[in-house]
């Protein structure tokens, strides 16, 4: 156990303002780090670009969900009203996309939402019940009034002293702390 404890997870750098961490994120991106993340109490406009994140592929899950939902709704109503148990209601045709539309539309929204949520879970490898950062007392302020960058030890460019110096001197972090795994 003790050998596990001494293994570093990464370096946690604390910042006091959104502008500071924005600037620091640009420097981390330009330094070529790949396994790192930013933790802030609220979303910061432009942070995706500052971190150099590419466009999220979640939209494709949403699209597939919506597409499936729409045609499921149409097929379901066609099957029930025209094929399996033909029934005339209010003198209307047995099937028309018109009355099938509200249901198909709701199905589109429902399955789009499922696609978005579960696609996001899948891409983020969630659910995951533990992260070494949770043990850090200081990190709890990331939901209050502090901003954090964590560069993981697994990053190929990670070097304990070099990265610490980079975060302190280049990124102007107020505190840099080692987080153990």
């Amino acid at each position, binding site marked *: 156990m003790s050998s596990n404890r001494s293994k570093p997870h990464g370096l946690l750098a604390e910042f006091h303002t959104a502008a500071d961490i924005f600037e620091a994120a640009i420097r981390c991106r330009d330094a070529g780090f790949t396994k790192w993340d930013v933790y802030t109490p609220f979303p910061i406009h432009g942070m995706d670009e500052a971190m150099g994140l590419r*466009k999220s592929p979640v939209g494709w899950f949403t699209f597939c969900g919506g597409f499936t939902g729409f045609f499921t709704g149409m097929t379901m109503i066609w099957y029930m009203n025209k094929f399996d148990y033909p029934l005339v209601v209010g003198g209307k045709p047995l099937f028309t996309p018109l009355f099938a539309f509200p249901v198909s539309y709701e199905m589109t929204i429902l399955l789009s939402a499922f696609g978005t949520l579960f696609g996001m879970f899948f891409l983020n490898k969630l659910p995951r019940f533990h992260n070494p950062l949770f043990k850090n007392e200081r990190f709890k302020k990331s939901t209050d009034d502090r901003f954090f960058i964590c560069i993981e030890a697994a990053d190929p460019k990670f070097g304990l002293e070099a990265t610490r110096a980079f975060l302190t001197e280049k990124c102007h972090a107020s505190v840099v702390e080692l987080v153990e795994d």
Partner: protein
Amino acid sequence: MNSLSRTTRSWMFLAAAVAAVGAVSALGADAGHAAAAHDASHGASAHGAAHAHGHVSAFSLKQIAHSYLTAYMFCLSLCVGSLFLTLAHHLFDAGWSASIRRVTETMASLLFPWMLILALPIIGFAWTGNLHAWFKIDPATDHALDVKKVLFNPKAFTLMVPVLVFLLGSMARSIRAWSVAQDKDGAAIWTTKSRKLAAGGIFFFAIGVTLLCFLLMKSLQHQFFSTMYGVYYFAGSVWTTLITLYLLTMWLAQPGRPLEKVYFKRQQQDLGVLFFAFTVFYAYIHFSQYFLIWNAAIPEETFWYVLREVGSWKWVGMTILFGHFFVPFLILLNQDIKRNLAVMIPVGAWAWLMHYIDMTYNIMPVIHPEGLHLTLWDPLLWLGMSALLGRLFWSEYRKNPAYPLKDPRLQEAIIHHEVPAPGAAAAHGHAAH
């Protein structure tokens, strides 16, 4: 001196346009009276069906009146859409749109006096019996008109249309005047005033725009019922305004033009997203109107769509369904497309065409029940009126600073958006502060 002469020229241009329409009105007056008499004699049997006037000739006053109304409703869309976006900016206390607000303020200010002046020929056409059939129908002979005569009577029409346009225009002008006053002293009181006006004004806006499109457009077939008609016109209006604003501000943000330093990808993306949202909103509203009428199948309502499924109107309807919704919807689904001008410029031209077709679909079946029938007046009046208003917009826009110089939210609109590309950090400094 320069701006004075520009204003004078605009007035002369407008006067010439009104005079030209007036001259044509005078020439066609006899035809108008004949048609009016025809209407009156058939008024009683008009319920629930299109007025079958037979062929309406291309040079008849009736044709010109309807083409003029179609062009007017299109241009009115851009003005009320801009007014809505200005009000929405203040209601939400928005930051991102501060840098493009002067454009919407100016476009909305065209309502008064210009849109009011342009509304006068419509009133003239209606009184001479060339537009709204109920001007010449005795309510005692027409039950549908009798129950609606509080609103649909010539005096109310003549009074309400100018007053509504005037009040909407005054609201736009007040907000712009306060914004311009803020350019000089930077006081926050001007923003507070606009916000208060917007809070009450949005209710008046909703009622005013609904009444205007009921009076001007929906009452062409006064028997029709639809509580969604106002929001339907509103949705199409804001849709068209957003893409117009998108292209206009893009042009104004090119190097050397006035919005260069305050307009970024964020504004472009957000306008694109709003345009996309209103693509869906419009479809939702129009489908709901159609679906409720179709499902309830009450003749007082269905006749309106039955007429629009005759002959080529059916295909016009399909064009609206696919061209106004599916095509832009599928194109705009992609996030990055909203910043791709090679796509957005054609989409903008397409949206203008679709909104014009939508107005045509509402207005023209009344005189051409047999199918779509375009005349030279349609493009002439549509593009002519748009060009005239575009010119008036430009001369008014140039009188004031191109964006609200000292708006408290301007800073939010312009910071944090230009993230340097990888490798440029050294030169970046602390611009983000």
